[in-house]
């Protein structure tokens, strides 16, 4: 802590005799379980981050758009009349020189976490509540500063000089109240937090987190206009009507909810990195180096009495590209980590440099199959093909490797359920297949949102974290009902009417009766029955992604049912009922 030693001494003395009554303006720890919290927030953080991202001067008006509405605007933009909720045209109308950027969560987080690095020198513990907002427990400051105002002043002046951003401070007995106080740049006296909260409008619950929006609507309809109205209700009634979320909101409103925030711990991070002296594309070299690196990481993790269940592997190529993948590994050890890294590197380099290399590998494995006979199952997966010749790709290879413990848990949380049958054996088998045929050869099913079966399919390589792109909970008007095709396809075909003319599709229906399907091979099949055609319009709000589809189910004379879809004037076979 780099505070003034004299002040620290004084404060230390003050707290040494820390009967609450003895100190006037510095009961830095609130009574009854509360913790005085200082919240610092940067107003219009998204706009500030966008300006930093695009290297704009602070005087350039900046407006950040999300879903077509302004969600943040900096001070010059506000002065020009831009308000939150404006659309893009209104921005251009009010302030033509304004710089309009799309909201980017990464930018928000990136600049903030970089900027608040300065705070690490000043305070022992702090928590990032979100981009633009951070919380500092005030009891961590009591040794360094005489009272709250001086602490705030010192911190803010240091932060402003380090970052150039404007910070609004707020102090209250709970974190939630402190966040609200920061929005008004005020300090709530100790013990007055409940009164402060009671006067706040119910809409401030939006800080409570996901799902609060619906709750706010319901509360408003019930006539609860302020947090005080909500707090006045009996906690049990709220819980029985609104379950956990309602209880959370009630706790926040009443100023009782206090969850200890996970502190940002300034210690060695649980990651390891290794720069290579010479770039390499050889997976055996990488695997060898990784084993040591992984052992280091696991030792670090183990020393804290934790278990690592997911690991993020980062590879950096000479050209500056990077590959990140997060893997979930059940029996995490240096060998399994090295395997994953090898697969990731192989897949990445193969995809990046030589698209044909995967085929070459398959050919060689099939050749090996012929040689091996009865004892092929005892045979260890053959060592990898040596990668491409290092000389050829010396400017391509990987120069740095990083491992990050992505998910940590206590040892009890990592143990497998007793009721899962032979999962370990299954894991072993599937890993072996992944080793032989590549990680993408073993896929586990999942579902995501979408209109067609091809879009709802979410096949993820075994033991990788699934990352759905589309929300399955959202409504998907026009999504296909059961029965759905059993396999997914995407094959351009011709759908012909009686005279051999192609069948056109309009929103009102087909232009003519479909009679024959012609496959790319030239084979044809007659259509004996067909469904009504129904249009599916997706992404109409974005001209880049908008597609207009007409979907049709047909039954052919061989008794097969097929799902067809017309996109951009071309019919496709998109699914087969098999």
């Amino acid at each position, binding site marked *: 802590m780099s505070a003034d030693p004299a002040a620290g001494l004084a404060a230390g003395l003050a707290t040494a005799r820390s009967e609450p009554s003895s100190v006037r303006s510095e009961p830095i720890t609130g009574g009854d379980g509360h913790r005085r919290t200082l919240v610092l927030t940067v107003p219009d953080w998204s706009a500030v981050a966008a300006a930093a991202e695009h290297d704009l001067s602070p005087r350039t008006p900046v407006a950040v758009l999300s879903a077509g509405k302004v969600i943040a605007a900096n001070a010059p933009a506000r002065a020009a009349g831009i308000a939150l909720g404006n659309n893009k045209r209104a921005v251009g109308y009010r302030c033509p020189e304004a710089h309009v950027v799309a909201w980017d969560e990464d930018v928000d987080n990136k600049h903030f976490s970089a900027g608040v690095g300065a705070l690490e020198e000043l305070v022992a513990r702090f928590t990032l509540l979100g981009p633009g907002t951070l919380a500092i427990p005030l009891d961590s400051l009591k040794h360094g500063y005489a009272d709250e105002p001086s602490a705030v002043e010192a911190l803010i002046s240091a932060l402003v000089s380090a970052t150039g951003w404007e910070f609004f401070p707020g102090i209250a007995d709970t974190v939630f109240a402190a966040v609200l106080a920061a929005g008004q740049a005020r300090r709530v006296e100790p013990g007055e937090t409940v009164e402060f909260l009671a006067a706040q409008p119910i809409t401030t619950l939006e800080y409570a987190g996901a799902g609060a929006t619906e709750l706010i609507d319901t509360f408003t309809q019930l006539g609860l206009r302020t947090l005080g109205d909500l707090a006045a209700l009996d906690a049990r009634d709220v819980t029985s009507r609104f379950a956990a979320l309602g209880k959370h909101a009630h706790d926040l409103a009443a100023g009782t909810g206090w969850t200890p925030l996970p502190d940002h711990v300034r210690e060695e991070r649980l990651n390891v990195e290794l720069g290579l002296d010479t770039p390499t594309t050889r997976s055996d070299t990488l695997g060898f180096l990784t084993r040591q690196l992984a052992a280091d990481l696991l030792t670090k993790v183990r020393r804290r009495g934790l278990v690592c269940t997911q690991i993020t592997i980062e590879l950096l190529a000479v050209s500056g590209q990077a590959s990140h993948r997060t893997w979930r590994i059940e029996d995490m050890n240096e060998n399994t980590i090295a395997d994953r890294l090898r697969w990731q590197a192989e897949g990445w380099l193969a995809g990046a440099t030589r698209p044909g290399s995967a085929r070459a590998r*398959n050919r060689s*494995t*099939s050749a090996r*199959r012929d040689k091996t006979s009865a004892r*092929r*199952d005892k045979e260890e997966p053959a060592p990898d093909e040596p990668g491409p010749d290092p000389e050829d790709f010396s400017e391509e290879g990987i120069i740095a490797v990083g491992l990050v413990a992505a998910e940590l848990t206590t040892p009890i949380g990592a143990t497998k359920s007793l*009721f899962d*049958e*032979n999962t370990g*054996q*299954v894991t*072993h*088998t*599937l890993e*072996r*297949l992944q080793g*032989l*045929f590549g990680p*993408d*050869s*073993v*896929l*586990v*099913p*999942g*579902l995501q949102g979408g209109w067609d*079966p091809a879009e*709802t*399919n979410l*096949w993820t390589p*075994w033991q990788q974290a699934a990352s759905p792109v589309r929300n399955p909970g959202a409504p998907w008007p026009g999504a*296909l*009902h*059961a*029965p*759905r*095709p*059993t*396999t*997914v*396809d995407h094959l351009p075909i011709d759908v012909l009417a009686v005279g051999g003319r192609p069948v056109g599709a309009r929103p009102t*229906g*087909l232009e003519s*009766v479909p009679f024959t399907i012609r496959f790319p091979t030239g084979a044809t099949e007659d259509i004996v*029955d*067909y*469904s*009504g*055609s*129904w249009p599916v319009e997706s992404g109409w709000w974005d001209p880049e992604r908008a597609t207009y589809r007409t979907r049709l*189910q*047909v*039954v052919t004379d*061989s*008794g*097969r*049912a097929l799902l067809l879809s017309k996109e951009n004037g071309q019919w496709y076979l998109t*699914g087969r*009922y*098999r």
Partner: protein
Amino acid sequence: MDVMSAAPLVEQLSREMGISTAAALFDGPRPRPVDPVLSPMFRRGGLPRGEIVTLTGGQSLSCALATIAAATQEQKWCAGIGLGEPAVSSIADLGVDLDHFVNLVTPAEDWLRVASILIESFDVLVVDPGFLPSAGERARLLAKVRERKVSFISLTSMPGSTEQIEITDTQWSGTEHGHGRLRSCLVQARSQTGVHRFLLPGPAGTPAEVPAPTSAVDGFERPVIRSVS
């Protein structure tokens, strides 16, 4: 002397899981339960273990997935080989527990190798073989299937299989010449137990009995078919 030598053998056999009596030894392992609509197709009312079952014809993949559904719900692991890209939504519709299904995307010519690795720990395999195995390969595959008591469903006919189910006719309904959509498919399947008619998929996406209006004749037929076995 005979009694003396038989005792350790009996003891050893009784230590094997699942073999409690001599009858159990002769009957082999109990078949896996399947959907009640599908169970008449199988000789012993369920998906046999340690044997190869062939399922061919239209809608055979749906039929195979519907057959394995009950096993996956009992936490048995199932894998598909050579199926292309199945639609997850239809797999789920047919009742398969997605947490216990794995799809293998491996070269078609490697299916035998992949299957022989999977047999070690999986309970059910659904395979569309890329090529037919030679007699020697087939014998080894059969021996392995028998040893590990795996249920092996092949979507093309394969010599050495013990049960053959062939779907001989499929009739889709609901499309109404441009005024409806696919609703259900009436399937006629022939197996060692006779000819069976059922809906796959039925209106709910799962196998279903043929509904009453059309089953005036079928309802009369079916008991006769069931008794022939």
